């Protein structure tokens, strides 16, 4: 595949995404052809060209610093997979 190789296992770790060995193999093969296609961008002369992050960049968009209604505790927790005492319940982080 024209020297385009992707270490799916490593990238999946970066993305915190558990993949089965079959998925790793399949995604690797599919992305190899996508990456090979993407290589064509190397043909373009981009010297001196500024990158575009947004088509219409707006800067310093602010609003008055006023207190506004947000979600209540109950609303914020409504979709939590696990909760306790009005808080999100998460696995133990510090030993």
């Amino acid at each position: 595949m024209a020297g385009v190789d992707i270490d799916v296992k490593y990238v999946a770790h970066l993305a915190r995404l558990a993949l089965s060995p079959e998925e790793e193999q399949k995604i690797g093969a599919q992305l190899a052809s996508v990456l090979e296609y993407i290589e064509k961008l190397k043909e373009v002369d981009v010297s001196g060209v500024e990158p575009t992050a947004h088509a219409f960049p707006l800067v310093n968009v602010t609003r008055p610093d006023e207190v506004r209604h947000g979600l209540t505790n109950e609303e914020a927790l409504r979709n939590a997979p696990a909760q306790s005492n009005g808080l999100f319940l998460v696995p133990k982080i510090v030993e």
Partner: protein
Amino acid sequence: MRMLNRLTISELVTRLASREVSSRAATQACLDQIERLDGRLHAFISLDADHALAQADAADRALALGATHARQPLLGVPIGIKDVIAVKGQPLNCASKILGRYVSPYNATVINKLQAAGAVVFGRLNMDEFAMGSSTENSAFGVTRNPWDLSRIPGGSSGGSGAAVVADECIAALGSDTGGSIRQPAALCGCVGLKPSYGRVSRYGLVAYASSLDQIGCFSKDVRDAAILLEILSGVDPADSTSVPQPVPHYAASLTGDVKGLRLGLAKEYMVGGLDAEIKAAIDAAVAQFEKLGARVTEVSLPHTDYAIATYYIIATAEASANLARFDGIRYGLRVEGADPIELYSKTRGAGFGPEVKRRIILGTYVLSSGYYDAYYLRAQKVRTLIRRDFLKAFEQVDAILTPTTPTAAFKIGEKADDPLQMYLSDIFTISANLAGICGISVPCGFTREPKLPLGLQLLGKPFGEETILRLAHAYEQSTPWHKEKPPLAALAG
């Protein structure tokens, strides 16, 4: 009288205003059509009929008390919503398993606007998971079928929205468009699909896929309805700092029918090999029609067209990999337990995301990862600048650019499902508009002969040039028969 669910917004509003019909009757007609057809079409993931009818009754009460469509232009009109836009108290899944039994705690700004205008907001319309796809095959809730041929895809990612409007399951619908996800399904199903300019419509409450490309837009049965909806949806929103403080025109006023002297560009890079012969013929006929209407057609050049898809799939996946980091099993949605937090995140995401979302997260993470950022992401952003410049230069010579919306008519379910690159290449004509931030509309422009499948033409306009493309699209539509054709739905029922 035609069945109420078959009406356009403007037709229904006339009948509601004269009290000839009620919103309850119109809403019930949509629900009945869904009952008849959607078992086979599967445009809707879910539906809260009681919620819809309660809104309809409220609209009828308001009308009885003297409310007017002058003040609430959509009063009593049923509008379907893509499952990526938050409606308070309703499920939101993005056609993914990872959101579990999520219920939106707030309204998207566009929903507030529709409800303020009196609309009956209903349904969760099917889509490709997290709007990633071109066929609606990537939904965790099953594929939506094309109303013209059940063995074919409706397009995507907003395939449910396109199919529902064409099958008269709603009067109009909202969708989102990141690389063609409104215009492509509109073309393949045979209705009007409008992607506004970047910044025209607030995205607050739209689940983010690629934030520098996403826009909310609409599906409708004619161009007038698209103009009506756009006026309601548009405007700056303090809750979305990327919405642009541009005045909102009265878009329907631009539908004069007069396009004399307007300059229409044909991009020579778009009329290339690989374009289906029937689509080429339909576009040639449309060009002749525009000339007959008095538009001046000239050739323009968009020299970086060939690089648009590669640029898109770097930028969109990079942004997606960051945006979708929030689905980690902690605050909402699915959770798969693990020995430690990292394992919990990984297992939750591994179990909750479907194959295309996983592919795009991997690609996006890869192009942003150490050592590859400059080669892929930064380079793509620079090519994006060149693509945008191509359009701005072309728009110095013409008022709008005419292209096919898609290179082929609707393909078969399963035909491209295992070949992501082929699927990506089908977005060739729509993807550049998102990179450039310009507006675009797809309108029906004919049919293939055998089988009979709809075709769409696309008009691309300057940033915030929606009035011009709406005017052109409307004049074309009103001088051609295509938008009046309906799929053989009788064969679908039963």
